[in-house]
């Protein structure tokens, strides 16, 4: 994760997915994730359908597959864990290509891999089609405590500032030949963190005073109308709705 990172997670566009109100998309993504997690792992076909649903959303939103793939790197540590599971897992074992693998471990590895991947792709699509600020306003409409939303908004605003500060300090360290190699270098890293805290906090105090002098009274004005029509809720509900339908088939059959 580099500096200025969060500009690259949003892909501005004018697709039907981009135009949906943020609260609809937020709820749809969360509901979809819940349906995915609640799906029995033996129901392999369902995961293929879920993946197809997400592919349709990505196509409608004109988010290229390469973009989603690059953002999926975040998942790598758990992929490693999922791959290791069949080898270290307990229970009945099966021979595959000369390797003794645990059956239960294979299922568990598949379970984590499939569900985590679908969850990651859903969040990536949500973030790619929704401006971070709008996403937070949508959260506020969903009755998330306003103070929490405000903290998150200030965090997004300050993130670039703090990350830039950190990058400048790193450049300064490295231009003096510093490379963090072992434990002895921890004090240097820690002093940077301390300096970063003081610099950010002092800057925050200045910004807060500037805000007060411009009439800040504890809440930011909301200038957009974010109300969602019934139709928009319906469109957004398609993703979790269809997923739920697929899940329902398992119990009916």
């Amino acid at each position, binding site marked *: 994760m580099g500096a200025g990172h969060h500009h690259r997670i949003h892909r501005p566009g004018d697709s039907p997915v981009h135009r949906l109100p943020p609260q609809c998309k937020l709820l749809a993504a969360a509901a979809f994730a819940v349906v995915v997690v609640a799906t029995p792992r033996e129901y392999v076909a369902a995961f293929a359908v879920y993946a197809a649903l997400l592919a349709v959303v990505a196509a409608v939103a004109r988010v290229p597959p390469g973009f989603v793939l690059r953002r999926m790197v975040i998942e790598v540590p758990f992929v490693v864990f999922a791959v290791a599971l069949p080898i270290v897992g307990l229970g009945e074992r099966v021979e595959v290509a000369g390797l003794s693998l645990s059956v239960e471990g294979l299922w568990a590895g598949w379970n984590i891999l499939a569900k985590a991947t679908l969850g990651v792709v859903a969040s990536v699509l949500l973030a790619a089609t929704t401006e971070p600020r709008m996403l937070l306003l949508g959260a506020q409409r969903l009755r998330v405590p306003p103070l*929490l939303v405000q903290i998150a908004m200030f965090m997004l605003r300050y993130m670039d500032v703090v990350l830039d500060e950190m990058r400048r300090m790193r450049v300064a360290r490295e231009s003096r030949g510093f490379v963090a190699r072992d434990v002895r270098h921890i004090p240097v890293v820690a002093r940077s963190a301390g300096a970063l805290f003081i610099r950010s906090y002092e800057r925050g105090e200045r910004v807060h005073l500037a805000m007060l002098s411009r009439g800040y009274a504890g809440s930011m004005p909301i200038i957009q109308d974010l109300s969602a029509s019934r139709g928009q809720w319906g469109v957004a509900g398609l993703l979790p709705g269809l997923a739920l339908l697929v899940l329902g088939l398992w119990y009916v059959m």
Partner: protein
Amino acid sequence: MHVPDGFFNVAVSVSAGAVAAAGVAVCLRGARRELDDRTAPMAGLVSAFIFAVQMLNFPVALGTSGHLLGGALAAVLVGPYTAVLCLAVVLLVQGFFFADGGLTALGVNITLMGIVTVVVGWAVFRALTRILGGGRGAVVASSAVAALLSVPASALVFTLLFWLGGNAPIEVGAVAAAMGGVHVLIGIGEALITGATVSAVLAVRPDLVYGARGLAGPLLLRAADGTTSEVAPAAAAPARTGAARPGGFLLAGIVVTALLAGIASFYASSSPDGLERVAEDKGFGAVATDHALGEQPLADYGESGGIPVGVAGLIGVGVTLAVGGGLFFAVRRRGRRLAEGARGEERVDA
């Protein structure tokens, strides 16, 4: 350590979500006392700081490196309530914008990395500064030990949740050993960085370190004629009003927890019933009940312990809430003592 979707079953995810929501609700009230009208901007800034600091990789042992969790550091720098809020916001932003940590695992992540690290870190820090006194060295040492213990504590709670409803067939002992081992190492790194960071901030702006509030000397006014006079610090005033009615916050926390726990346990207990009904409707109830139970989300849970699924779910919810509630009670008492301490001991210590 961000848990993705599908790692824990639905019951554990929902109950951890209830604990996280209750914790954040309590902290929303508490943070107003720590930061008053500056809450939103300053907490936002501290969140951005924690987000940045979590990217600082530090070398742990040969070839491996860890990154800061920042729970204990944030608690010492800005106070426990603000720290939980900041970490919760960081995890929310990471989950929704960076796909780091699953959306259904948000509750688990906030509980593990926000609440547990901060509560354990702050409890240890308060206990140690009480024993060692409030000197600068004591604050630095206490924050290092707090950080050292907070990381394995978080790993321990992870193991507990895994035992309750993890989706992987690994022995709990093995998980505990692996998680514990790695996180003791990470904890040592975290301790060194936290201690050194707190020490660096103390050296420049001791007033910014919440855990060292007792350290700040009173403001001395030196007049032109050589006389000096002390100005009584005004910082104790908000703490006093807050300490007067801690019961309200505790009550609110318990009510929220109980409400959410009700929803969670309803889910945990009603789900198998619904499934059994479907099974009976389809006429394979008697034959396939075991099989049907084995295929729904709570299954690993009931099978592993040999107890009915609904009961297992309820136990899971109960244990999770008891642990969360107990830790909260502990931190509330510490918070009250801190407020009293801030009133009682206005030491001059440079």
